[in-house]
């Protein structure tokens, strides 16, 4: 118990220690949390009327952002899996970073869902026993289960590994007997949260563009691109700013995953565009609306082509070995482009335009309000603040700077 307390204390103390740039980053996030607390208060007192959502376009930026967080959370297994499934030595040490990313992003996603709900105060209605969960009928019930289980699995993984390393008893071969199944379950669970999230959308008869069997594949490939893009950025940053050792081979593996995930995304888009546009039935209406606009409504057209251009361009760029190995210049740039393109694809291509035409033939455009925008930033800021602090503490433990036994900590950090 005492050890657990000192673990929490040492972890926290190390997490809030840093240079000027570190504090500037925390302050930057704190600003959005401050503004966001006010806009969130407005939303929770006045209702979702302060967002741009309507009966015609019923999902707002919160739900779109939730889908994106599920991308990144699911993709974090790509860091965990090589170490545990393929016994790659260079990855095994870093697996915990993947689990931290998964844990934080799935929690951020759940927060987005709370912002999406009209009555967040009634969330308890879905807890079985206390309320009533419409299982196994409702896809949202499945999603609630898989997201929460994923959060728990990853939290256990993170706390267990870091604690073991903290007390200096982390031996890969001597892990508790219950731990290995949890890690493997978490690896399998990553794609699962994503497939279920895709089915939450694909199960709706109203929205024709989502009623496609390629949606889970599109989601998984976008996860494979956006998640590792963020992870490469984190790794490059950690390598530069901390003593944590990350081999080039790790970055290269991630880059390969990004490149071929982008390849699959392009194939999925092409397949979808062909299958809809060639027969040109009513199912193509929504796609035509995104690609070319409808009677002067062309809010999404530039976004669509912009996203396509960014994805194809990034794929082409990553085919050059010069770009892939330009760790301080081109690679981070491509990663930022991939991350932002897929982030923006969610609301502007996947979610909002899919609602036009409505079942009664209406075409509408979605306009994000300022309050909604700051609420989205609020949740992101909380997410990135947690990510920063937890990663910082974890680095301290991984590099040996934070140890229960203070004397060995000194000798290890010297080594």
């Amino acid at each position, binding site marked *: 118990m005492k050890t657990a307390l000192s673990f929490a204390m040492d972890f926290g103390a190390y997490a809030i220690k840093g240079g000027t740039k570190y504090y500037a980053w925390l302050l930057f996030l704190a600003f959005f949390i401050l503004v966001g607390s006010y806009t969130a208060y407005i939303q929770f007192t006045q209702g979702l009327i302060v967002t741009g959502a309507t009966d015609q376009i019923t999902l707002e930026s919160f739900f779109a952002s939730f889908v994106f967080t599920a991308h990144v959370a699911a993709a974090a297994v790509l860091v965990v899996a090589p170490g545990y499934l393929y016994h790659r030595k260079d990855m095994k040490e870093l697996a915990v970073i993947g689990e931290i990313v998964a844990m934080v992003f799935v929690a951020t996603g759940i927060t987005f869902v709370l912002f999406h709900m009209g009555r967040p105060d009634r969330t308890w209605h879905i807890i079985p026993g206390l309320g009533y969960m419409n299982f196994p009928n409702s896809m949202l019930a499945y999603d609630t289960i898989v997201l929460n289980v994923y959060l728990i699995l990853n939290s256990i993984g993170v706390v267990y590994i870091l604690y073991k390393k903290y007390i200096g008893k982390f031996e890969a071969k001597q892990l508790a007997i219950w731990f290995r199944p949890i890690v493997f379950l978490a690896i399998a669970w990553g794609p699962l949260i994503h497939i279920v999230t895709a089915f939450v959308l694909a199960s709706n008869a109203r929205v024709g563009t989502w009623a496609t069997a390629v949606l889970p594949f599109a989601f998984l490939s976008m996860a494979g691109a956006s998640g590792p893009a963020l992870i490469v950025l984190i790794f490059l940053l950690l390598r530069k700013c901390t003593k944590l050792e990350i081999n080039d081979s790790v970055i290269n593996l991630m880059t390969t995953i990004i490149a071929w995930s982008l390849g699959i995304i392009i194939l999925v888009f092409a397949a979808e565009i062909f299958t809809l546009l060639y027969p040109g039935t009513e199912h193509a209406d929504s796609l035509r609306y995104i690609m070319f606009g409808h009677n002067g409504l062309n809010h999404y057209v530039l976004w669509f082509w912009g996203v396509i251009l960014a994805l194809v361009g990034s794929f082409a760029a990553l085919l050059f070995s010069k770009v892939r190995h330009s760790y301080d210049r081109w690679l981070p740039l491509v990663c930022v482009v991939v991350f932002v393109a897929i982030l923006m694809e969610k609301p502007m291509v996947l979610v909002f335009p899919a609602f036009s035409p409505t*079942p009664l033939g209406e075409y509408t455009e979605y306009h994000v309000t300022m309050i909604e925008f700051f609420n989205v930033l609020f949740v992101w800021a909380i997410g990135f603040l947690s990510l920063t602090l937890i990663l910082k503490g974890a680095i301290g433990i991984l590099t040996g700077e934070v140890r229960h036994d203070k004397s060995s900590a000194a000798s290890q950090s010297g080594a």
Partner: protein
Amino acid sequence: MSEEKNEKMQDADEVVQGRRDFLKHVCTSSAAALVAATTPSEAVDNASNPDADVTVAEFFQGHFLLMSEEEKLQAIARLEKRYSAQYSKKTTVSNAPAPDGVLFGYALDISKCIGCRRCVHACVKENNQSRNDPEVQWIQVMKMPKGNIAFTADQLDKGYPEKSEFGDYGVQVGGNAYKTAGLSTEDAQNYYNDELVPDKDFFYMPVQCQQCEKPPCVKACPVRATFRDHAGVVLIDYNWCIGCRMCQLACPYHARRFNWGEPHLPAEEMNPKTHYFGNRPRMRGVMEKCTFCAQRTREGRNPACQEVCPVGARKFGNLLDPDSDVRRVLATKRVFRFKEEAGTYPKFFYYIG
């Protein structure tokens, strides 16, 4: 219905008000603030709230269908107390069950409908929808162009005809017949503002909840707040709905409406004869839709939209009774279901009389 964006932007006064509220509440603990913030703010802020216990008890109440008889009576009494105080008039909340041996059905004659939208407004009046900013309407009337397109010979080569050795009239995109005609949502006008109806070049098709036999909304609801009663009507427990809008996403008829903000129902326009699953006033953040006027039809009366129709285009009745209006329509007229391909088997039928 609809919430155009500009209607939704709150004006500067409300922002100032919100800021004042914020400062007022900022000292309370975060948990208390969440409960206070998400209970109906009118009930909390206004002195009209009978007592805070009502709000708290309502917060903890379970699904109405899963309550004991005693809990149901308590819940009803609570609501009657709150509504009576809030709207300053004696309000009754009925808990009448659906009649046994009945399956409600509806039939609408699209050849008779003149698009006057009296049904739309009678529905709003009867069912206590939000009246302004925004007005919530459960029935939407589509105005569709008749198939009377001006076909002309000089348009034969218009558009983008495909040129080939078989002639220039292969696949023609654009030109004469490249328009929608007849029953199609594609060129339907849902917000027409005509002085006089009917417009002779158009026909009209009102759409409301189709009371599907296999409702996708019921399947999608994660907490079973929406369900189908034994008379075949899909209802919502407004106090159980969590506002996730999965039902709205699932509905292929655009029949469900969400209370995006606090509903504005002036006390003098409020209909005090209500039903728990029907027209009792709703709160912010919950779904609502046509219930075939549960408060009326469970007592053997006709829905408001059926009563008000000036041309007798609407028929309502018991599908189990071979002599009912609906059954007679089904037996003798050319009947169809809207979006039959959605596979939901509506009990709302359209016919050509």
